[in-house]
C-alpha cells in the first residue's frame, strides 16, 4: 500500500514539475538561440575557394563583389571577371571547365546562394560599408573558408545586437575589407560621430529593415 501511494505521488508531482521544467528548457533554449539554424558549407558548381583567392592571393572583396560599396546587393562576378585571370592562369584546368563553357556558350553560371535573408528583410551593403561595418562582422573570416558557410544565423536578434550599440562594431572605413581587423569600442564611439551613425532608437525602428 505504501509503495503504491509513493509511486502515485512521485508520478503526479513528477508530472507537474516536468511540465514546468519543459517550459523552462524550451524558453531558455529559444532565448539562447539553441534552435536557430546556422548554415553549413554549401557545395558550388565550381570548387571556388575564398580561402585561396581572398586569403592566399589577398584579392579584395571588391574585385568580385564590386557593388558592395555602393548598392544594396554586393553583386556576383560575371564570368568575364573569372576569365580576366583564368584565360592565362590555369587556362585548361578541368575544375574551370564550367567557367570556360559559360564563357563560350554565354550561358550563365548558377551559384548556390549561401545567405538567404527572408524576403521581408532589407539589407543595404553600401550603407553598412559607408558607416564602417566590416564584411567580417556578418560574413565571418571568409578569407579562411575554402567553402563558404554562414558563421551565425542571421536572426533579428543578431542584427539588433549591432543596431542597439553600433559603437562596438564600427571600424575606420579603410579597415572595412580587412578581415583580420578587431573593432575597439573606444574608437567605435568616435567613429559613430564621424560616420554619422544614427541613434539606437532610429536604428532599431522597424522601417530600418522591414518595408
Amino acid at each position, binding site marked *: 500500500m505504501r509503495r503504491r*501511494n509513493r509511486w*502515485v505521488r512521485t508520478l503526479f508531482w513528477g508530472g507537474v514539475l516536468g511540465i514546468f521544467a519543459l517550459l523552462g528548457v524550451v*524558453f*531558455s533554449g*529559444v*532565448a539562447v*538561440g539553441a*534552435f*536557430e539554424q546556422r548554415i553549413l558549407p554549401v557545395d558550388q558548381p565550381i570548387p571556388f575557394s575564398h580561402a585561396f583567392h581572398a586569403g592566399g592571393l589577398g584579392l579584395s572583396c571588391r574585385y568580385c563583389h564590386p557593388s558592395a560599396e555602393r548598392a544594396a546587393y554586393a553583386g556576383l562576378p560575371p564570368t568575364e571577371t573569372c576569365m580576366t585571370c583564368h584565360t592565362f592562369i590555369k587556362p585548361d584546368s578541368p575544375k574551370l571547365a564550367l567557367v570556360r563553357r559559360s564563357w563560350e556558350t554565354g550561358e550563365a553560371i548558377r551559384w548556390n546562394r549561401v545567405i538567404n535573408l527572408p524576403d521581408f528583410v532589407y539589407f543595404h551593403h553600401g550603407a553598412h560599408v559607408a558607416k564602417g561595418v566590416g564584411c567580417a562582422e556578418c560574413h565571418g573570416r571568409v578569407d579562411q573558408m575554402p567553402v563558404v558557410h554562414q558563421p551565425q*544565423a542571421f*536572426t*533579428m*536578434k543578431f542584427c*539588433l545586437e549591432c543596431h542597439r550599440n553600433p559603437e562596438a562594431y564600427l571600424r575606420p572605413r579603410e579597415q572595412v575589407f580587412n578581415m583580420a581587423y578587431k573593432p575597439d569600442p573606444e574608437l567605435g564611439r568616435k567613429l559613430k560621430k564621424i560616420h554619422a551613425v544614427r541613434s539606437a532608437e532610429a536604428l532599431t525602428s522597424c522601417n530600418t529593415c522591414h518595408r
Partner: protein
Amino acid sequence: MADRPHPDRDLIQGEWTEKTLVEKLLEPVEKPAPRPWRVVLAVGGALTLAWLYAIFVTFVKGLGTWGINQPVAWGLDVVHFVWWIGIGHAGTLISAILVLMRQNWRDSLNRVTEAMTFFAILAAATFPLIHMGRPQHFYWVMPYPTHMALWPQYKSPLSWDVLAIMTYITISTLFLYLGLIPDLALLRERSQGWRRKVYGWLSLGWTGNAVHWQRYRAVYVLLAGLATPVVISVHSVVSMDFAYGLVPGWHLTVFPPFFAAGAIYSGFAMALTLIIPLRRWYRLEGVVTERHLDWMAKVTLASGLGVAYIYLLEIFIAWYSAEPAEWAQQIWRMTGPYAPYYWAMMLINVVLLQTLWFPRFRKNLTWLFLFSILANVGMWLERFVIVVISLSKDFLPANAQLYFPTWVDWTLFLGTLGFFLFGLALFIRIFPPIAVAEMVHLFHKLRRH
C-alpha cells in the same frame, strides 16, 4: 434552534433520506440516460462536426470566407466571443459569490452552472484564435523569449484579453474540479472495475479526512473570493477592447459595468435555459425547486435592469456629449439599415424584461424558459449592435459599408452551440450535475433542526 424550522427548509422538498437523496442525485450518472439526453448529444455532436468543418474552411481558404470587410473588420466572430464569455459568467457568480454570501440555494445549482461556464469559455476562447489572419502565429501574443527579440505589446487590450481569459479558464476549471473531488470519491466507492479506477484517479484518492476537509474548505472559499473579481475583471477587459477604441459607439467609459451586467444577465438566462428542462427530464423538482428558479429570475431581472439603464444612458450621453459622430451613430442604429436589430434588442432587454417584476410571469416556467432564450437572443443582438453597427458607419461618410455574415460565420456560431451542448451532455453523464456532497450537507443542516 430545534424549536423553529430552518428558513431555507423548503429548498429541498419531498420526503427524503440521505440514501434516496443520493440515489436521486446520482441518477443521471448511474441510471440509463433519458431520451432527451440522447437527442441533445446527437444534435450537439453533429453541430460540433459542422463547426470543425467551418474552422477547417476558414484556415484553408482564409478569413475572406467570412462576411467581414473594411470597415467592419470585426463581425460575428467577435460578437460570439463576447456572447459566450458573457454566458460563462453566471456559473462563476452562482458558485463563487453565493458561496461568499452563504446562500444555501446555490448548492443545487452550482455544479451545472460551473460546467456551463467551463464549456462556454472554451467555446468563447476559440473565436479570438480563428479570427486571426495568421492563426499559425497565435503564440506571438504570449510573452516568451524569441529570436526576434520581440514581445507582446502590453498597452493593447487584446494582450490583456489573452491573460484574462487564460486566468478565467484556469480558475473556473479548478473551481469546478475542486467541487467535484468529494463526489468523485463517492462515485469511486459506488462503482466497480475500470470506472472505479478512473474515478479513483480523478478523485486523487480523496478519503474525506476531516483535516483535509478543513483545508479544502479554506481553499474553496479562497478561490471563490478570487473568482469573483476575476469574473468582473474579465468582462471589464473584454469591454475595454471597445471602450479603448475611438469608434463612435465604442468610446464609452461606462462599458465595464455595462458589460459585466450584461454578462450576468445573459449568464443567468442561459442557466435558466439549461436548468428548466434538466429539472423536468431528470425529475429534480425536489431539489431544484420553484424557489431556486424564482431566485434566478430575480437576479436576471436585476442585472437586466442594469443593462436596460445603460442602453438609455448611451442615448443620453450621445446627445449630451454633443459629439456629432456619436450622435450620428445613435441615429444610424435607430434608423439605419440595421435598425430592426436595434429595436429587437430594445424590445427584449428593456420591455419584455419588465414582465419579471410580476410573480405571475416569473413563476410561469413556460414564460420563464421562453424569456431566458429571448434574453440570450437579446444579448446577442446587443453585441451585434455594439460591434457591427458601430463599425459599419464611423466618422467619415465615405467609410460606411454594410456587413453580411456568410454561412461560415453562422456555422461557427451553431457549431459552438453544438459543442457547448455536447460537452454539457457528456459532463452530466460522467459527473453528477448536482453537487452531491454539498446537497447532503445542506440536507443535514435543514433536517437536523
